[in-house]
């Protein structure tokens, strides 16, 4: 019982990073109706830039953070221009295929630039573990949860309280109605892409800093985690992305503890299939409110 609770707590910390990745995917999918599978690799470029800046000038976590945000933003804009802005809105498949091509390009580019492949990343400042009723809340996890929580709070404010958020929701709800209401659809789509990049960079940063390293495979890993969490939560729902990310984290932690690392992925993808078949609307689709279905 204690194990179960401990695993759940560990899972929530990991899941909060997955949730941020899923939210990045969801923002892009909600507003553009297109899947950007180069999302993970764009973040990976940012994280590598952070690692490089740190190695070059011993910039520490702050310097690496700034570089990670900048790198993820530039890589995402590159993807947006080539795979989304340049391709007609209704050609969703072309965008996905093209973002796959850019994924390979980004991954190979980073592998060439960093022949050592796995590169060190500055770690999170050490924080004391907190103990209560026999459970341990790790210092790293506290930091991860705090940062992810702040990012989610700011995002929520932006989407539901700001003018830009209203434009974004309008575009996600109906592209035609948004266009005739004078939403500059291209501009809002572009800014949404940038927003997703920043959210993704927060996730990449937390994960890399927890691990203390990053490899070019991080792109693949982040895309898969984000996509799976998004699918479990319900395609196109922000609340679903949050729930899906947390659920993914918890299930992974439990599976790893009880069944071992090898079985973990099997359990995760089993869960994905179960969700797709039994809950086509995802976790968020269980309680259909309508209000947040698309964004």
């Amino acid at each position, binding site marked *: 019982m204690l194990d179960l609770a401990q695993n759940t707590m560990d899972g929530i910390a990991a899941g909060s990073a997955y949730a941020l990745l899923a939210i990045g995917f969801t923002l892009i999918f909600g507003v553009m109706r297109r899947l950007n599978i180069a999302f993970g690799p764009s973040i990976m470029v940012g994280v590598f830039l952070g690692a490089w800046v740190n190695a070059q000038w011993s910039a520490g976590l702050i310097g690496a953070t700034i570089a990670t945000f900048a790198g993820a933003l530039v890589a995402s804009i590159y993807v947006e221009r080539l795979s989304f802005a340049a391709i007609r809105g209704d050609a969703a498949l072309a965008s996905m295929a093209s973002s796959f091509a850019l994924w390979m390009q980004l991954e190979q580019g980073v592998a060439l630039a960093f022949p050592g492949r796995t590169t060190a990343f500055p770690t999170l400042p050490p924080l004391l573990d907190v103990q209560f009723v026999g459970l341990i809340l790790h210092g790293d996890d506290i930091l991860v949860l705090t940062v992810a929580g702040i990012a989610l709070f700011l995002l929520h404010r932006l989407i539901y309280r700001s003018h830009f958020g*209203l434009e974004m929701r*309008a575009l996600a709800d*109906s592209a035609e109605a948004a*266009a005739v*209401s004078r939403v500059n659809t291209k501009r809002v789509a572009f800014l949404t892409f940038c927003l997703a990049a920043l959210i993704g960079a927060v996730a990449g940063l937390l994960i890399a800093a927890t691990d203390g390293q990053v490899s070019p495979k991080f792109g693949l890993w982040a895309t898969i985690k984000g996509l799976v969490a998004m699918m479990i939560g319900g395609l196109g729902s922000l609340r679903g992305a949050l729930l899906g990310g947390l659920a993914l984290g918890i299930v992974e932690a439990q599976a790893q503890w009880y069944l071992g690392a090898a079985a973990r992925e099997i359990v995760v993808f089993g869960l994905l299939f179960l969700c797709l078949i039994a809950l086509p609307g995802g976790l968020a689709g269980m309680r259909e409110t*309508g209000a947040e279905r698309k964004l």
Partner: protein
Amino acid sequence: MLEIADIKTSYGKIAALKGVSLDIHDGGLTCLLGPNGAGKTTLIWTIAGILKAQAGSMKIDSEEILGLKPHQIVSKGIVTVPENRLVFPDMSVRDNLIAGAFSRRKEKGGIEGDLEDVLTRFPRLRERSEQMAGTLSGGEQQMLAVGRALMARPKILLMDEPSTGLAPIIVEEIFEIIGGLRDEGRTIFLVEQNAHMALKYADRFYLLEQGRVTFSGEPGAVDHDEVIQRAYLGARKAS
């Protein structure tokens, strides 16, 4: 005044508009009639800047505006009430209306005032202002679409088939709203299949058939039956 001259729009190789010219005069209801597939909605989407015209010109108060992007067209005061009442279904009625004022976000006070005006004009929208727009009835969604367009303070209101899919009694209600807007001196361009109702309210009409304007005039000066027949069925073959 909006002057449209020789507009050509096609979908791939299929020409939908083969050179359409018409004028929308200030303060009055100009109506575009025509059978299914004549190109009426294509013309609206072309004016709104969502479809790209291959040729032609469109001038508002002598300024050329063909080729501008949709949001720029709205900034020129040309606001569309799209067909099938395209509201934002998952946003509240109030948010839908505020979305109509995207073009004017700088002037906060004016927006609140206009919101109040629209809610006073359509009391049913006030009752449901916190409800999701997707849960409204067809007639209420049409009111919302009109209200949203009014929030942009339009110079010219383009309305695409507001009566589609509504019960006859609701259609009359919608036309009374349109008539009321006209009586306030607003400029309205109404695209309508329901020629019978449209001719009752129009100051001037055009008949669009197979991508061309084939007939125009003032409702008082023509035989309504003839126009109505052609608007529903298209031109009779030369006999």
